[in-house]
């Protein structure tokens, strides 16, 4: 479980993923490969199934069909906590923190129960370090519910990082930030990527996609409609059609 993968190795291999809710097919034959290093983008209009794919990978939902291989191991049917301990971490579309626990305790939970479980005292020290890394240094004793929006996002990131992931899944982590905060956020993600953690980011902020991603997958109505480098993908007429509707897809 703790063997590091060299860059270029496939870390996450998703094949033929399918999920429907009653009559609605949310994800249809979705495949993607994530390398051990680098940042991959997952974009598409609202309702295209991006978060569902995330939920399927992290075990929150069970796929109807398909295969999810992480470091060669089939993680289908694994409960979320086990997947997290296997070094896949995530953040949530609507930021979720443990409001009535302190900032430090929030991160401690990640450190204590993530991939390298440890005691509360050691977790406390590591948490303080991590909080400094994400820009929340010195705020250890503040109750998480009292943080500002961007600080809560940082906290969520710190908590995810505390679980010692090799793969980090960000669900619209840059949403709702003003330009200054956005730049800080982009830099933070870049640093994390450089530190050796593979990142998949679901995003609508195209500036971030261009700035950070090596590779981008585009989804629409549950299916993959394009993949490739960010510039290529973002000028692909099919992608523009998906976002803007057929009438507006001029060259």
């Amino acid at each position, binding site marked *: 479980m703790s063997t590091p993968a060299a860059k270029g190795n496939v870390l996450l291999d998703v094949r033929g993923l399918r999920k429907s809710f009653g009559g609605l097919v949310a994800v249809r034959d979705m495949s993607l490969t994530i390398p051990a290093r680098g940042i991959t983008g997952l974009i598409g209009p609202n309702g295209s199934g991006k978060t569902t794919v995330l939920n399927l990978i*992290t075990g*929150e939902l069970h796929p109807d069909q398909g295969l999810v291989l992480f470091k060669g191991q089939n993680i289908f049917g694994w*409960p*979320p*906590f*086990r997947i*997290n*301990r296997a070094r896949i*971490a*995530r953040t*949530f579309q609507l930021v*979720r*923190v*443990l*409001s*009535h*626990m302190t900032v430090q*305790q929030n991160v*401690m*939970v*990640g450190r*204590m*129960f*993530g*991939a390298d*479980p440890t*005691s*509360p005292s050691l977790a406390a020290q590591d948490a303080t370090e991590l909080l400094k890394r994400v820009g929340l240094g010195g705020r250890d004793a503040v*109750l998480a519910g*009292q943080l500002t929006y961007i600080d809560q996002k940082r906290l969520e990131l710190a*908590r*995810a990082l505390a*679980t010692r992931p090799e793969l980090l899944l960000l669900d619209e982590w840059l949403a709702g930030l003003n330009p200054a905060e956005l730049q800080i956020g982009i830099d933070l993600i870049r640093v994390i990527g450089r530190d050796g953690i593979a990142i998949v980011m679901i995003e609508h902020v195209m500036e971030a996609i261009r700035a950070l991603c090596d590779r981008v997958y585009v989804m629409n109505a549950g299916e993959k409609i394009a993949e490739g480098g960010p510039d290529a993908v973002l000028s692909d007429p099919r992608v523009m059609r998906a976002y803007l509707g057929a009438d507006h897809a001029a060259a």
Partner: protein
Amino acid sequence: MGVLFALGAVALALLPLFVSSYIISVFIVLYANVALATAWAFFSGTTRYISLATAAFFGTGIYVLAVAHVYMPVAVALALAAVVGFLVALVIGLSTLRLRGVYFVVFTFGLTELVHQVINWWDIRFNKTASRYIFTDVSNTSIYWTLLAVALIAIVGSWYVSRIRLGYALRAIGEDETVARHTGVDTTRVKVICFALSASVMAFVGAVLALRYPYVDASIAFNSNWSFQVLIAALLGGPTRPWGPAVGAIPLVMLSEFLAGTFPHHFGIALGLCFVVIVYFLPGGVAPLLERWWQALRAPRDPGATHTPFSSRLAARLRAGASRLEAGGRT
């Protein structure tokens, strides 16, 4: 703080040497309530899965003792009661704690009646009797010390757990179970084990108290008022501190001594009103207020100490309860 606690414990242990039998009895009931309320808060106060089934486990303990004491020494029967309580809760937990909060609450709501009916039926059907006699010569003082010990262990245990990993897991589940799940916490296992632990303490307390009754039947053993009283004690005192439920149990037992004997049903009404008042005006219980008062006395250290109302913290519990009932699903 710890020194005070130890001194208090010793003082209480020596009490029977100086007071009347009646006072000893009152304290016995007090310790029982403290232990039950603390055990309840250990699970339901942290994870916010509200269990209305205290009486079911308490009654199970009474009944196990009533049946078993004929065949084995009292101490073994007591241990057996704890084990049975643990196992029953384990089964229930495994069935219902995988699902969301509302199902659990509803299940525990009916549990006391269920166990009551089943045991009644079993006894009448197979043993041709609906009641059991308890013949032991355990002294009041022994019961006093046993229950004092259980109450102290419950409080200390609660405090200890809150400082180790398990305590963090419990609180994380109570704050936001989805987050806990995705942060490496094996939520089902934590919930089930802690629920079972709390139930075994309740069963043990029931078994010890049973030693005072010459006679029990299913109706005596499985009385929902216990569920309710314990809930009030825990909520009044404050379910988020290890010593909170103990604080809440004291006025409750005092009131019970004055009212319950003479006006049992009026007592129930009074409890109900009390309860409603607590939920509206004292959602976090008395403990956070006492704490702030204590801190203010010692030094104005942290003016930002936040009062966190229990009810608004009961967010994750039943989080998807209502919507789950519409859309369904378990994880």
